[in-house]
C-alpha cells in the first residue's frame, strides 16, 4: 500500500512526473473541494472573499521567488501589483476609451510588470539585506505617489472607474464573484506547477545558490546579475497578473489600493505560512486573505450585535476591518515568538532556525 502510494509517473509532462501518488491524491482532493466551494457555500460575499484570496496567493507566490528563494528582502512589492492593475485599467476602461481584450492584457500586464521589475531591480543589484529593503520600500512609496500625481493618465487620487470585466465568448463575468473565483483557481494551479518546476531546475537552484552564498554562486558560473533580474521580473509578473484580475473584479482602482499595507500583508502571508515553501505560501496566503476578507468583516457584525445586546455604544459602530493591521502585527509577533519558521516551513528554514538549539543541546 505504502509503496503504491509512493509511486511516481515519470512519463507525465510539465514536471508532474515528480509528484508521488499520495501527493497527487491530496492535491486532487483539495482541488476538488476548492472547485466545489462556490456550490457548497453560495453566499456571494463569501465567494467574493474566496476569490480575493486569489490575488493574495498570486502576490505571495511572486514575492516568495524574490524573498524566499533568492533571499532578497523586498518591501515595496505592492508597486508591481499597482503597475499590473493600472496597465490593465488604463488600456481597458473609459479612461482613454481603450478596451483591449482582458486575456491579452493578462499577458501584456505581466510583461509590463516584469519590465518594471527589471527597471526597479537593476539599481538594487549591489544591495543586500537592510539596504535593499529600504530602497524597495522607497519604490513601494514612489509608485502610488506617481499614480496620484500623474492625473492626466491615471485620473489622480480618484482612480480609474468602470474598468472592463472579462468575458469568454458571449459569457460575461459581470459582478458575479463566482467566475472570478474559478479564473483565480485556474491561474493559481498553472502558476503552482510552473513555480514548482522552476524551483527544481537550473534557474531555481541558481536563485537559492545566490541566497546561500552569492560569491560562491558567482564562482560556479552563475551570472548573478541576470539571475537576480530574472527573480525580480518573474516575481513581478505574478504581481502583474494578480493586478489585472483584481482590477477587472473590483472595476474601480485608486492609488490607495496599493499602499505599503499590501506589501506588508503579502510578506506576512509568506512568513506566516513558511517562507520558501510553496505549500506554506499557499496556507499562509489563504489564512491572511480569509482573515482580511471574511473573518474581520464578520467579526465587526458580531461586535455590533454584542454592542446592541449589552448597550455598549462604542461596540455598536466599531469597524474591525480598520483594525486588521493591529491584528496582522499581533500575528506577526506571535509567529516570530512561537513558530518563526512558519506554519508549513520549508525544511531549509526549519533547520536554519533550530540549528543553534541542536548545537547547544
Amino acid at each position, binding site marked *: 500500500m505504502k509503496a503504491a502510494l509512493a509511486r511516481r509517473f515519470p512519463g507525465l*509532462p*510539465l*514536471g508532474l512526473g515528480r509528484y508521488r501518488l499520495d501527493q497527487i491524491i491530496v492535491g486532487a482532493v483539495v482541488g476538488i473541494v476548492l472547485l466545489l466551494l462556490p456550490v457548497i457555500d453560495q453566499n456571494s460575499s463569501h465567494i467574493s472573499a474566496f476569490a480575493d484570496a486569489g490575488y493574495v496567493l498570486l502576490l505571495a507566490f511572486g514575492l516568495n521567488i524574490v524573498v524566499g528563494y533568492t533571499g532578497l528582502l523586498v518591501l515595496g512589492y505592492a508597486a508591481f501589483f499597482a503597475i499590473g492593475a493600472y496597465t490593465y485599467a488604463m488600456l481597458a476602461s473609459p479612461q482613454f476609451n481603450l478596451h483591449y481584450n482582458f486575456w491579452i492584457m493578462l499577458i501584456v500586464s505581466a510583461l509590463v510588470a516584469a519590465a518594471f521589475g527589471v527597471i526597479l531591480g537593476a539599481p538594487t543589484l549591489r544591495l543586500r539585506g537592510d539596504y535593499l529593503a529600504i530602497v524597495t520600500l522607497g519604490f513601494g512609496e514612489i509608485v502610488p505617489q506617481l499614480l496620484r500625481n500623474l492625473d492626466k493618465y491615471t485620473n489622480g487620487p480618484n482612480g480609474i472607474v468602470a474598468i472592463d470585466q472579462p468575458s469568454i465568448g458571449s459569457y460575461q463575468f459581470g459582478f458575479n464573484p463566482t467566475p472570478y473565483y474559478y479564473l483565480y483557481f485556474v491561474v493559481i494551479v498553472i502558476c503552482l506547477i*510552473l*513555480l514548482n*518546476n*522552476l524551483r527544481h*531546475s*537550473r*534557474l*531555481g*537552484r*541558481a536563485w*537559492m*545558490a545566490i541566497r*546561500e*552564498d552569492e*560569491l*560562491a*554562486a*558567482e*564562482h*560556479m*558560473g*552563475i*551570472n*548573478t546579475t541576470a539571475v537576480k533580474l*530574472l527573480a525580480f521580473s*518573474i516575481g513581478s509578473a505574478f504581481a502583474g497578473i494578480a493586478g489585472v484580475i483584481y482590477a477587472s473584479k473590483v472595476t474601480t482602482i485608486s492609488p490607495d489600493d496599493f499602499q505599503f499595507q499590501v506589501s506588508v500583508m503579502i510578506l506576512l502571508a509568506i512568513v506566516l505560512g513558511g517562507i520558501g515553501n510553496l505549500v506554506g505560501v499557499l496556507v499562509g496566503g489563504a489564512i491572511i486573505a480569509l482573515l482580511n476578507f471574511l473573518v474581520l468583516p464578520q467579526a465587526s457584525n458580531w461586535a455590533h450585535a454584542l454592542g446592541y445586546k449589552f448597550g455598549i455604544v462604542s461596540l455598536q459602530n466599531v469597524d474591525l476591518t480598520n483594525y486588521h493591521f493591529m491584528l496582522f502585527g499581533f500575528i506577526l509577533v506571535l509567529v516570530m515568538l512561537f513558530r518563526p519558521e512558519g506554519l508549513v516551513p520549508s525544511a*531549509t528554514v526549519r*533547520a*536554519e532556525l533550530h*540549528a543553534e538549539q541542536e548545537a547547544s543541546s
Partner: protein
Amino acid sequence: MALLSLRELSKSFGGLAAVKNLTFDVDEGAIISLIGPNGAGKSTVFNLITGIYRPTSGSVNFAGREIAGTKPNAVAEAGITRTFQNIRLFAYMTVLENVLVGRHVRMHAQPWGDAIHSPYQRREEAESRKRAMELLEWFGIARYAHDWARNLPYGQQRRLEIARALASDPKLLLLDEPAAGTNPAEKADLMKLVQSIRARGVTVLLIEHDMKLVMGISDYVHVLDYGEEIAHGKPEQVRHDQRVIEAYLGKGA
C-alpha cells in the same frame, strides 16, 4: 604551451602591495603548489585569477585568452573553478544540488524550459544528475546526496566543495588550502584524490600549508613572501632553499 600564465602580475590595496610582479606558468596536466607564510598573497593570486580582483598591472592568460579582470562567472565558464579557504558551500541545499549548481554553467535550459520542464530540460536535467551522482560516487559521498551540505562532516564538506568545483568539467582547478583542518587520514585521502583528479586530465593549482601534502604531490612549487616570489622549483629544491626556510622560520633559524 602553458595552460595558465601569469605575467608581471601586481595588485595593491591602497599603498599595500599584496602581490608584486608575479610571473609563472602552469603547464597542462601539472600539479603546481603555491606556498608561503600567512599573508604572503597566495589567496590574492587566486582572487586575481578568478576575477574577484582586477590586477593593478600585469596579465593573466588562460588557454591563450587574457582573462584578467573578467568576472568570476565568465572565468568559471572559461574553465577555471575553485574552492575556498573557508568552506563556502550552499549550506541549506542538498549535496546533490550543490554539485548541480556547480554544473550550472554547462547547462543550457532556458527559464521557460525550466518552468514547463520541456523535453530538452528533462533530458539535460537527467544527464546532469547522472553526472553529479557519478562525481559523488567518485568522492565517496554519494550516500549523503540528499542531505544538506551543512550536515556533512567537516572533511566531507571539503571534498564536496572540490566535487562541486569539478562539476563543470574545468580545465584548471584552484584549491585553496583543501587540507586545512582535516585529520591525517583525510589528508592521505585528499592526496590520492588530487592525484586522481589530475589523472582525469584536470590541471591543479594548489595553495597549501601542509608541507607533507605539498611535497608529496606537487610537480613544481612557487614560494611567496610579502607578495613576491622568493623561490621556485621542484619540491626537494624548494625544501632546502635558504630563503624559504627564513621566510617560514625567521632569519637565523
